[in-house]
């Protein structure tokens, strides 16, 4: 299956932790690809290596072996600095927690990325931040500190912070695990819109309800890929 839209490809990725006797291979010879315009899921039991794989695909965790080709470039052949710039220009992240700075408002968090990352003038920053807050449904909460936002709102700020620089690749590690489904659904819908707007979205999740939103699903077990599923089929398989 060769798809012209493939933007991110992992080839023979292997990663282990520890030395000698305690060494354990966590991701074993995994090859997989992701396309622009799709929201892809990485599924698997706890400890199966999903997060480790996501780290390698996103430039945060160095693989022992294998290659990550992203937007036509070999991610792990770049220098540290080049990889950092690559992440700045192309990658958005959200993690399990929102990890917002307690002293800064929702608006500050979004501004900071544009000011520090892209050095845009204030007028441009303001416009984009206001637009993004609107998109997140936080138009009237921009001035609030994290302590005054609900869990879902915080996670939306975190997503906004990752989306505001309009990345072509978006990595999310269990972004909904700390949220109830009402809020979780919002987050997933936002990510799907992002994907359908042309970005490549890779999400690690445990939540079977998300399967219905996915365009592509990879399953991991003991660090090995079981194969890619069609979404509907996997939804059935994935149901507990």
């Amino acid at each position: 299956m060769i798809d012209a839209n493939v933007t991110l490809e992992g080839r023979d990725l292997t990663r282990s932790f520890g030395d000698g006797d305690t060494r354990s291979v966590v991701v074993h010879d995994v090859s997989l690809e992701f396309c622009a315009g799709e929201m892809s899921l990485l599924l698997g039991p706890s400890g199966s290596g999903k997060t480790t794989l996501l780290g390698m695909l996103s430039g945060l965790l160095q693989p022992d072996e294998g290659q990550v080709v992203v937007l036509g470039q070999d991610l792990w052949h770049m220098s540290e600095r080049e990889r950092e710039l690559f992440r700045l220009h192309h990658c958005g992240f959200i993690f399990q927690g929102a990890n917002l700075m307690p002293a800064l408002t929702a608006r500050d968090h979004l501004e900071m990325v544009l000011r520090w990352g892209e050095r845009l003038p204030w007028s441009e920053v303001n416009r984009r931040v206001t637009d993004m807050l609107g998109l997140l449904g936080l138009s009237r909460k921009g001035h609030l500190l994290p302590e005054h936002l609900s869990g879902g709102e915080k996670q939306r700020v975190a997503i906004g912070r990752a989306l505001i620089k309009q990345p072509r690749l978006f990595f999310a590690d269990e972004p909904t695990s700390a949220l109830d489904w009402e809020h979780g659904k919002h987050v997933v819908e936002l990510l799907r819109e992002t994907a359908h707007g042309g970005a490549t979205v890779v999400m690690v999740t445990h939540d079977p309800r998300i399967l219905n939103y996915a365009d592509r699903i990879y399953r991991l077990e003991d660090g090995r890929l079981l194969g890619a599923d069609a979404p509907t089929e996997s939804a059935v398989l994935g149901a507990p």
Partner: protein
Amino acid sequence: MRKPYSLKILWHGRNRFLPAILAVSFSAVLIAVQSGVLLGTLAVTSRPIDHAAAQIWIGIRDMPSIELGHPIPEAWMFRLQAQPEVEDVEGYLYEFAYWHKPGGGSEHCCIIGARLEGSSMGAVNDLTPQMRTLLTEPGAIVVDATDLDRLGLKHGVGESAEIMGQKVRVVGLVHGFKSIWGPYVFCSMETARRLLTMYGADQYQYILAQCRSSADVPAVVERLQRRYPEMSVLSDRDFSVQTRLYWLTRTRIGVALGLTSILALIVGLVITSQTLYAATAASLREYAVLRALGLPRWRISTLVVSQSFWIGLGGVSASVPAALLLGRFAGFVGAEIQLPIWLLAATIAITMTIALVSGLLALRSLRLVEPANLLR
């Protein structure tokens, strides 16, 4: 104006940062006040020079400060008079003696005998014309108001005591001459000669001179010094500085005060850097997200150092009024604290530097910022 992120962080965590701000402020106050006390104390040692009109002081060779002169021959006056620029020359006595309190007991005192006429170069300008008239009486003296206790006197004016077995009578009080050595006793040259019998009639401790134009002083000093190596020739300014430096280095009051200041600085440094370190370490995950998103490391470092800047600024702005108030208060109780602008500026500079250094030290916690740690 938008508030910088660092300032927002500081304000939000003000309870956490308050001790650091107080520590910085405390060390700044301590440095300023300690140095002010030092300056004030040292100023008293050279005040007889600073408050006299003489421009050139001649004494025995190798005299490190005004207290450590020795009798010199009156004949040296001719050497000065021979200089065309010199307008006026006169003698000066400065010697330690025993003061016998009226109620018993004795005390060191320091006798300053000078000519008293209006054109006098040696008499301190604190002596009013009225006092100068009274001082022409044999045995009449003027002392500092704050020394009365030490001299065993009650109200001063009108009271008598003995110096070297000779009766003296207080005719006036001056202020600001509370010496670290022993009380100053101002009197006429004639009275001083009567009290200090070890001086020959043709001896002085210093010879003072004035030039027609003060611009000539350096040249005259230089010429005399080259010509007569057996005498010390100093401008009033140099002699004053030399005297204060002698006291600074010789007595080690400077050392004691300096050490306390350094200690205060270290405490400020440690508290500030630990506070910032802890605050930064508590935000590692937040900073890691910024790094994952590709925001440069230096932005985060700047964020931390800026916080130390605000801590420094907060501490300093609290300390300047506090130091000035303490200075006022000290003046009130008779201690002298000098807080010239340059001292305040230096204190601010040192304190801000220390605050920024603590910020830089706190940066070591940023080594722990690792985006991969977010993948848990």
